[in-house]
């Protein structure tokens, strides 16, 4: 635990590297589907420049997939004295600080692919919908421990709404 007044860049907890597999698989599936849809102008409408959408969409999917390992490495969280710090993103960076006392509930979700890899996703819910703190790619054990830690921290620092 670190002091709340500074952001210690060495204290970030990383998510499991196995989460890359989950994320890549997800992007491969959605990439194939969107690329397939983008063939519609070429095949159905016989549009002159119909080859353009599949190339653009396919390239975008490939770049997204290629960047996944870096994006997963960019996800981090740290438990400071009084709040949870969460960051993610390389192109669009997001850094969130949530005081423990603001916790309304903690959710643990497991998707089908993530479950095969033994990973869970932890969601920290506050009264504000925009908070959006979702830590993916946590090994089940870690996720459950983190949940219990967060709940007890929230209990000791309970604040009103």
């Amino acid at each position: 635990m670190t002091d709340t007044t500074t952001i210690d860049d060495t204290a970030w907890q990383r998510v499991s590297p196995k989460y890359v597999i989950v994320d890549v698989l997800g992007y491969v599936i959605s990439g194939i589907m969107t690329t397939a849809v983008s063939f519609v102008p070429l095949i159905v409408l016989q549009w002159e420049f119909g080859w353009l959408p599949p190339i653009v969409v396919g390239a975008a999917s490939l770049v997204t997939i290629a960047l996944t390992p870096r994006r997963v490495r960019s996800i981090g969280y740290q438990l400071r004295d009084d709040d949870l710090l969460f960051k993610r993103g390389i192109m669009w960076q997001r850094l969130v600080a949530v005081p423990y006392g603001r916790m309304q509930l903690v959710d643990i979700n497991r998707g089908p692919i993530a479950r095969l890899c033994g990973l869970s996703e932890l969601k920290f819910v506050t009264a504000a919908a925009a908070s959006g703190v979702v830590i993916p790619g946590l090994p089940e054990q870690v996720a459950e421990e983190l949940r219990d830690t967060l709940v007890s921290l929230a209990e000791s620092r309970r604040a009103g709404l």
Partner: protein
Amino acid sequence: MTLDAVPVRSFTDGEWHRLHPATPLLRGGIALIAIIGFIIVQMRDELINRFFGSEGEPDPLAWLRESGLFWLVAGVVLVGLLLFVVGFYLSWRMHSFRITDEVVEVRSGVLFRTNRKGRLDRIQGINVSKPFIARLFGAAKLEVNVAGQDANVQLAYLATNAADALRAEILRLASGTKEAASAPAAAGSGDVVRDRVNELLAPELDPAALRAESVVTMNIGRVIGSLLLGDGTLTLLLVIAGITVFATVTGSPFYLFGVIPGAIGIVSWYARKLTRYLRYTIAGTPDGVRIGYGLLSTTNETLPPGRIHSVQISQPLLWRIPGWWQIKVNLAVKSSSSEGANPESTTMLPVGNRDDVLAVLALVLPSLAAEPLVGHGLLGEAGDGFTNSPRRAAVLRWFSWRRNGIALADDAVLLRKGAIWRELVIVPLPRLQSIALQVGWLRRRLRVATLHLHTVAGPITPVIGAVDETVARDFFTRISAAAVEHGSRDTSQRWRANG
């Protein structure tokens, strides 16, 4: 038709109580009147035919009479009405509520029972509303808003003075004060008609329950002016201009008729706003801010201290001429019902000048009353306590980069935005849920970031963009530390616990 005789004080004794006996009539009255009206309309044709012997088309009633089924149908209708009445009576019998030191609880339903409990320390506001018809009967609806989606506990209907007294009692219990209960509500004079007339004419704020008068006085000129100068009018004029140009270019004036439905809608919208805002009052009570609205149907909302999650002071374009502002707030209440937490209840001040804004702000966020930052936030520019966007952010904020800024007061964050549509957003730190710093790849080239302050959902989204990146990081750490500190120190859920 009055319940003035019911001893009001006993409502908060923890026992189960029933609502005003006229409740079924007030709730289902419209439907009953509609059915009776339908029957009368049918009868009227029948009567006209009988007395004037006109040879109109055979109406259903006459046909029924001839077919000999009349008594059967009449019987069915009567039984239906009777069932209606019995149903309403039963639902009234089965609908009861109780108020203890901890919760307000309502049981209702004949076939499907519901039981709803609201915790008193989570009360976000109490709303006493009087729809016009209920008001004629001296009845009022009391709604206890608890945080959450559609989580209000509704007591409809109570006698007006019982509702007022009950509100005071619930607030007293919720506040955590050990002060003894105040004197019971004044009893009616016994003359029912005079009581009703007095209630109808009385100001929305009960003078006895208040230490202060309404801090803002509305006058009809200002309300009309504010509606005419609002952004809605601006849009309407633009649309009319666009259609006129289109009609002239195409040479067919029929397009002009397309404006009519929209114009009718807007006029009725204006009329609704007008009747709501004309009797607007706002005043401070020991148990929070009390806001009253409405000319015929009135609502009167009490927001205990610390229930306001974010405040926005804004100025539509044309309001710059008279120098008017409006104040909106985010509340932790989400009600899907038509009355209660509708858009108006998040409007703290529909229109007012600078003095009114400061007076209302002093009630809503008392700690900011003497804060010079507020004045700077309304009209100021560059170098007055706010940290503004850097020069290079002018690409993103063409006109407002000098004004676009952020400041951290004692217990609130102030965001100043907009040079054309001026806006000041204030987020009290004890209410801040979380804070996010976001940087997109294009913004990173400009070394600017966006700060999001997360509060409960409402009309306001407290976001400030185009802030210098190092400044944004600095504010991020300072605000997150201050939010923790104020969040743990805040005791407003039992706001008078020391009293």
